[in-house]
């Protein structure tokens, strides 16, 4: 048993770049959870991940991983977490066998048998240079490495982007197997929300360096809805119930922030369930209110 409650705690973190600010963000990833981290390209997903891995320094705020301080205890933390990037960070001339040797030296809990099992399961060649690997193979190799040293936390930045649906599905299944004992956690950033729609326990939405929403996925999805109505009816809808409104020449689609309440209040309107994509889209336009 690991004696922390949250695998990741991000508290009021600000990071200023020229032209971009990660603005006072906070969210937690409870132990045992798959957290989906959703945002447009450039919204601040990678900056957040780089900050928590201490690849970049933050201006203010606090980050704790596995209950430890992300700077002071960096060395201890790095042995117990695994990171997967969208590009393979290994040199082209190595093969899968070399990777095992390199990782064995880096991680005290490296499990060669587990690694070989993943290699076999992914049908990866052991001696082929990874420079000749396809994109899918490279990602599988990274994931095999990440899962073979008993990491308690997997941090993945767009890891499933660019993979075909068959491979993505296989990998998602493997992640869920990895979390089976309830002691391991995953933070997974993606702009492909269909993956997260399936397996994520929680989701966090980020836009322009700010956190829009964070919480249990099912609750967020159930809370929101898309109400269909005509321009006239639109006047009757209280602005406090509205996230934003998408208008067209034939009517309007309104995202409501309390599906149940809205279905009583506006019982003459149809309200469709919202997907994670819809929620992202309507929240991104929350400042303009009406868009098309």
């Amino acid at each position, binding site marked *: 048993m690991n004696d922390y409650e949250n695998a990741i705690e991000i508290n009021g973190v600000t990071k200023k770049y020229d032209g971009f600010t990660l603005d006072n963000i906070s969210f937690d990833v409870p132990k*045992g*959870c*798959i957290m989906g981290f959703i945002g447009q390209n450039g919204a601040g997903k990678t900056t957040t991940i780089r900050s928590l891995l201490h690849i970049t320094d933050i201006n203010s705020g606090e980050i704790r991983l596995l209950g430890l301080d992300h700077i002071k205890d960096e060395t201890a933390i790095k042995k117990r977490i695994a990171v997967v990037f969208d590009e393979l960070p290994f040199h082209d001339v190595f093969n899968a066998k070399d990777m095992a040797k390199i990782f064995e030296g880096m991680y005290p809990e490296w499990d060669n048998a587990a690694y070989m099992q993943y290699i076999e399961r992914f049908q990866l060649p052991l001696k082929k240079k990874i420079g000749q690997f396809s994109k899918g193979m490279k990602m599988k190799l990274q994931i095999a490495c990440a899962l073979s040293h008993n990491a308690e936390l997997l941090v993945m930045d767009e890891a499933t982007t660019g993979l075909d649906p068959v491979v993505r*599905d296989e990998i*998602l*299944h493997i992640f*869920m*197997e990895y*979390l*089976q*004992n*309830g002691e391991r956690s995953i933070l997974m950033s993606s702009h492909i929300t269909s993956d997260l729609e*399936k*397996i*994520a*326990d*929680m989701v966090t939405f980020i836009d322009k360096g700010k956190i829009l929403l964070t919480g*249990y*996925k*099912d609750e967020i999805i*159930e809370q929101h809805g898309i109400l269909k109505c005509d321009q006239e009816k639109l006047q009757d809808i209280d602005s406090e119930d509205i996230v934003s409104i998408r208008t067209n020449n034939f009517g309007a689609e309104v995202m409501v922030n309390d599906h149940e309440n809205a279905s009583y209040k506006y019982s003459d309107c149809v309200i469709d*369930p919202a997907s994670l994509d819809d929620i992202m889209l309507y929240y991104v336009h929350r400042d303009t209110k009406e868009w098309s």
Partner: protein
Amino acid sequence: MNINISNSSGEPIYLQIANQIKTMILEGKLKEGEALPSMRILATELRISFMTTKRAYEELERDGFIESYTGKGSFVKAQNLELYREEQIKRIEALLMEASDTAQKAGVTMEELHELLDLVNGGE
């Protein structure tokens, strides 16, 4: 044990799971004391969030269909089928009342109503 999830039914996934397990218990396909699959395994197999299966099991527990013990798992509870039957009969009564009301308003006779019931039952 068979569980099918529809993404287009509009019914939340946790309710779909809970309802299907309820049906299996009431039909006797899952017997008293029988162990249910662990929430993690069910989530992994169905490729859905662990929170969703957790919620489904909580729903079943609240409605008295299963019992969960930390570290051991979840098991089918003894069901009071008599009570369930009574509840269902009450529900059917209410539905029939509505049908008979509507029939009266529309001038449909009791005989015609009986015929209709036979018809929807697929019998003569």
